[in-house]
């Protein structure tokens, strides 16, 4: 039996809207195992990003519990949740969100600096991560000089450099053309197989769905379908 990496129980998230409330997540119960390549799919406003934010300890639920790698993310202090993100969770965003004043190398290196690794360790890890995504010759370039696909691959390298157990990818292909979108997802699939990293996507892109092993359908904050897909 594979190790359970995420466990979500009765998760509810409400946002105040004017005088009322908007329910983004409504009693969500899910679990994910190590090495899964899964996606949370649904239309805009279905609660996909909110769920990812809670799992990444960047937001807190209104009710319920979420255990990520043995830690209840709903009860962590700022420092503990920062530590969890730094050591165990990688993020890939829709717009790759690289720090513009730093080079590709320095962007990827940043989380290793937070881990207080030595310069030689950092160099080795960053070059390895760049090799994974096929961009070893781009180390000294600035993000402004990268194409969309290249930027997103750097973002993947940044997320993967610390070899996290979990990568949360929020609409990673939304700003890419079809060719780049396929390339990005294939890269992530290879990393998933090679490093046994759990990938959890939030997406409504069918190109991404074709690669997923499992799809959880969200509608109005509720899980309406949870299906294993074999590609």
């Amino acid at each position, binding site marked *: 039996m594979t190790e359970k990496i995420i466990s979500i129980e009765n998760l509810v998230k409400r946002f105040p809207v004017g005088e009322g409330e908007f329910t983004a997540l409504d009693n969500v119960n899910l679990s994910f195992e190590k090495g899964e390549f899964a996606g949370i799919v649904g239309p805009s406003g279905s609660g996909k*990003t909110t769920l990812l*934010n809670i799992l*990444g300890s*960047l*937001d*807190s639920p209104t009710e319920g519990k979420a255990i990520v790698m043995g830690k209840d993310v709903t009860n962590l202090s*700022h*420092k503990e*949740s*920062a*530590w*969890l*993100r*730094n*050591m165990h*969770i990688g*993020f890939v*965003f*829709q*717009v790759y*969100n*690289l*720090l513009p*004043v*730093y080079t590709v190398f*320095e962007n990827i290196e*940043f*989380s290793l*600096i*937070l881990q207080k690794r030595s310069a030689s360790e950092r160099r080795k890890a960053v070059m390895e991560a760049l090799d994974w995504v096929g961009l070893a010759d781009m180390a000294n370039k600035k993000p402004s000089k990268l194409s969309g696909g290249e930027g997103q691959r750097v973002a993947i390298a*940044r997320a993967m450099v610390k070899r996290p157990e979990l990568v949360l990818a*929020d609409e990673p292909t*939304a*700003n890419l053309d079809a060719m780049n979108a396929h390339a990005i997802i294939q890269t992530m699939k290879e990393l998933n197989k090679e490093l046994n990293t759990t990938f959890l996507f939030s997406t409504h892109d069918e190109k991404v769905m074709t690669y997923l092993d499992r799809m959880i359908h969200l509608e109005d904050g509720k899980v309406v379908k949870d299906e294993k897909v074999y590609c």
Partner: protein
Amino acid sequence: MIKFIFKAIIRDKNRSLLPVIIISIGVFLTIALSGYLSGVLGDMLDQTAKFDTGHVKVMSRAYAENKDQMPNDLALMGVGELTESLEREYPNYIWVNRIRFGGLIDAPNSMGGSKGQGPASGIAIDLFSSSGDEVNRMNIKNALVDGALPTKSMEILIGHEFAKKMALNIGDEITYMGTTMNGSMCFGSFTISGTLSFGVVAMDKGMIIADISDVRRLLDMDDAAGEILGFSRDEHYYDEKVALVEKAFNEKYLDSKDEFAPIMLRLKEQNNMGSYLDYVNSFSSLFVIIFVIVMSIVLWNTGLIGGLRRYKEFGIRLALGEDKGHIFRSLIYEATLIGIIGSIVGTLLGVIFTFYLQTHGIDISDMTTDATMMMSTVLRSKFTPKLLYIGFIPGVFAMVLGNMLSGLGIYKRETATLFKELEV
């Protein structure tokens, strides 16, 4: 992490250029104005030193206790040897002898009677030295209203108002009646070679300047002087340095009970100059405080705008696992680095400006119709070692304070709100 922060400061002009410019300007102004204040207000101090107190003054103890009365019966004896010894031990100072004296002036008329009499107070200085030190120091040439400097023995200079009051002209003879050092009466005839504007009403109406050799002969003060004044060769008064000289000199006579033993007093201890000096220093400090406050407010706003622009960056860093406290501290490090860079630039500019103004000054002689002994016609700044670091107080502190205030926004916002900056 410091290296990472430094790279961003150098590469991101938006983050650093404007704050550096603001800090440089503020620090420059702080230093330039502090130097100018020290110079101009110090100039008034300087005039007092040149005319009255010296940077240090050596008197007999008894004379010092009664110096307002100019008690020449309590004057220093053997001043030749004492002056030589001072020149040997403290070669960084110029030592001059002076005698202050008082008496009555009588102006004879053509019939042999008196056309006027009046009390006079006098200063005896070395008018005939080849270097012209005392003449230059007291700005006598520029203060001449009528006539010329004395060129021979028994010629004097007199206050212009005094001459007018007594209906005296250049070349007229006057008789001085006074008391010698030993207490006996003395009379002396002097010729008026010129009149002066002293710049102080009381002096203009009753002051005379004579050569010290003439006064020594008249008052029986051979190898004696009421005061030996010391002036720093760089012409600047540094209280801490002078205090050391004062202490070293006075220690030699600490155990002496002789009331004629010499005592040295520095400028700060004479004529309430202590409070005046403290006032100048307080003013300088007040300037620094005002600039810190003003610059903090400006930099707070600059920091706020910059901070708002950077919330997306903070969101990325939070996602990568940096905690809020670490982000806040990095803002402080950034502010410190930017503050130091700006302060270095501002200090450099301020010091160059101060040195320039100290060397060349601003000549206001065209703006002043009458020069006097008491007023300098060239306004100068004064460089002090303090100027090398006082700029850093507003420069670094204001920047750090401004960034701290703007960085509080990181704590006020929920992590999710900062992170939402990343969402499209």
